[in-house]
């Protein structure tokens, strides 16, 4: 789960990590009031869950009252990569002496938590990792004893020659680790971490992602979710215990299992079609779950054909069949449905569906081809 910069900074402040003086605003009037309070010039930053805000014109420095007005109007109401900007962060301007990167993740390969530092700030760290890996200094934490102070000092001394700044940075690194572990984060970044003209360290930007699997033990973090900025259908899917991602095609796919769901999309594409979505109905799927899935799928008006690809294990094919039957009636589904059902209770499923007017497929290749054929 992602949170906005302003929310991440509020969390930083709880952990005593310094951030600029700022205010989150939702209207032009609020922006004007905030700029008066913080003083001019000020920075106005769009709060959206995508990268590249600056390039898209979502970050502006306002030097006069007139500019505050103009930029507030511009940014509140613009769309960045399809997401409407409904909130902005108004911030004091910091005079920057130097910028660096400090970040922390769980390293999948090493199976350890790793702190990463880079002397360039404002960079895309994966880009640096690929092109210039030696520019990133990594320090691994021992999960059983934590992130020890001497390791934090190594980070500080890598980034800064001046010992006072280096040790101040070490303190920030320790706090960032503590926050990362306590809150089940999957990523925490200070990018850039800046040294101001007066020699102080400050987190100019903040990013925290949370491990979805850890959210059950942090109900307060779950409350930070910006439901408005999430896709309505993805949100509904999650609440129905389904996993859905919209794509741009017209063949709606309903599959049990994430790997098979991806393989089904790939197969549709392979045979020349365009998948409309990723949709995993999971294991032990009840008829109700199948109906929820179809409802979500059909909210996408591009869907012209529906392709069920079910390999029954825990999922019982007869449950899926009953779900299709009920949903077809309840939702008055007009689109043709291609079904491939194999595995547990396959025979019962065929009995249930034989009068339902569906198109049956032998195997997933056949199903994908039939779905594509129907569009011609």
């Amino acid at each position, binding site marked *: 789960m992602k949170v906005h910069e302003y929310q991440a900074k509020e969390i930083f402040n709880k952990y005593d990590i310094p951030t600029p003086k700022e205010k989150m605003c939702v209207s032009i009037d609020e922006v004007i009031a905030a700029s008066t309070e913080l003083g001019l010039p000020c920075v106005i930053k769009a709060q959206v869950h995508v990268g590249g805000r600056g390039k898209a014109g979502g970050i502006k420095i306002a030097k006069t009252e007139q500019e505050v007005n103009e930029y507030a109007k511009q940014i509140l109401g613009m769309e960045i990569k399809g997401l409407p900007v409904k909130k902005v962060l108004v911030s004091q301007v910091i005079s920057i002496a130097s910028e660096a990167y400090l970040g922390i993740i*769980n390293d*999948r*390969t090493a*199976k*350890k*938590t790793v702190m990463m530092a880079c002397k360039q700030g404002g960079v*895309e760290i*994966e*880009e640096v*990792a*690929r092109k210039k890996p030696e520019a990133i200094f990594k320090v691994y934490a*021992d*999960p*059983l004893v934590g992130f020890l102070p001497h390791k934090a000092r190594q980070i500080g001394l890598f980034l800064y020659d001046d010992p006072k700044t280096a040790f101040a940075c070490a303190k920030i690194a320790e706090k960032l680790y503590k926050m990362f*572990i306590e809150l*089940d984060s*999957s990523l925490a970044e200070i990018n850039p971490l800046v040294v101001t003209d007066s020699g102080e360290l400050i987190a100019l930007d903040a990013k925290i992602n949370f*491990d*979805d*699997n*850890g959210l*059950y*033990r942090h109900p307060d973090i779950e409350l930070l979710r910006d439901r408005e900025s999430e896709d309505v259908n993805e949100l509904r899917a999650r609440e129905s215990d389904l*996993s859905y*991602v919209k*794509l741009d095609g017209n063949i709606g796919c309903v*599959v*049990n*299992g*994430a*790997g*098979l*769901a*991806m*393989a089904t*999309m*790939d*197969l*549709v*594409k*392979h045979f020349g079609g365009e*998948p409309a979505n*990723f949709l*995993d109905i999971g*294991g*032990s799927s009840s008829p109700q779950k199948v109906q929820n899935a179809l409802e979500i799928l059909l909210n996408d008006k591009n869907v012209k054909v529906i392709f069920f690809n079910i*390999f*029954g*294990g*825990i*999922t019982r094919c007869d449950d899926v069949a009953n779900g299709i039957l009920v949903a077809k009636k309840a939702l008055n589904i007009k689109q043709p449905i291609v079904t491939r059902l*194999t*595995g*547990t209770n396959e025979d019962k499923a065929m009995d249930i569906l034989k009068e339902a007017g569906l198109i049956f497929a032998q*195997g*997933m*290749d056949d199903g994908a081809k039939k779905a594509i054929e129907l569009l011609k």
Partner: protein
Amino acid sequence: MSILINKDTRLVVQGITGRDGSFHTGQMIKYGTKVVAGVTPGKGGKEVEGVPVFNTVVEAVKKTEANAAVIFVPAKFATGAVYEAIDAGVKLVVCVAEGLPTIELVKITAYLKGKDCRLVGPNSPGIVSAGEAKVGILPGNIFKKGSVGVISRSGTLTYEIVDHITKTGLGQSTCIGIGGDPIIGTKFIDCLELFAKDDDTEAVVVVGEIGGRDEQDTAEYVKKYFKKPVFGFIAGKTAPADKRMGHAGAIISGTSGTAAEKVKVFEACGIKVGETPADVARFVKDKLA
């Protein structure tokens, strides 16, 4: 022969009295697995499918000489269940349970260091050594005893590929679902090390997906050390960036962990990649025929 489990495996089922635990205990017994004990705290003394239930894994191991554990408990209790199995001294822990926080896997990995115990999973569909034993939820009827090893990050996609392999007339030695989480106990390379020493395995199929770089590391390993033929499949060629595709580990971060990148490294390291599940089975058949 086979790897990880065989007809001598003595299994304890953690969470045996739950809906999934009891159902799959029956299925595993039907396949021929020696399920010797079950554990649910507070339900000791009962029986499920004729299997005695104990309050602790230690007691179950002591009374029944169980040497492997499978975990079917809700996410909230799964981390504790893994530690309990490790402490009871079983050699293999298969965690079917999903939804464990990633940081818990970091800690479990450190806890396992130096101990004679292997974790498979979490979020694993389980392991099948064809004709010998099955641990977990994979459907037994699609397997046939044979010489193809299968390793996969997925569940149903594995069934699809196994089914295709069986339909070509070939069979499997052992099939391992390693789990779809970002940090897992046993990775592709760990399985390949075991398959290298297994005389009954003549070829291996690696079923990967988007996210992380395990497939890339695996390909380099195969090129350097693995002598048997390896075939691959990568799911998620059409997946968009920065969206989690069901599995917690199946996410393209920015531009890294894409299917295209993985296919490229596989091919460069001599692993032939199937465009479709059916292709993979055909490649294996052509090679072993």
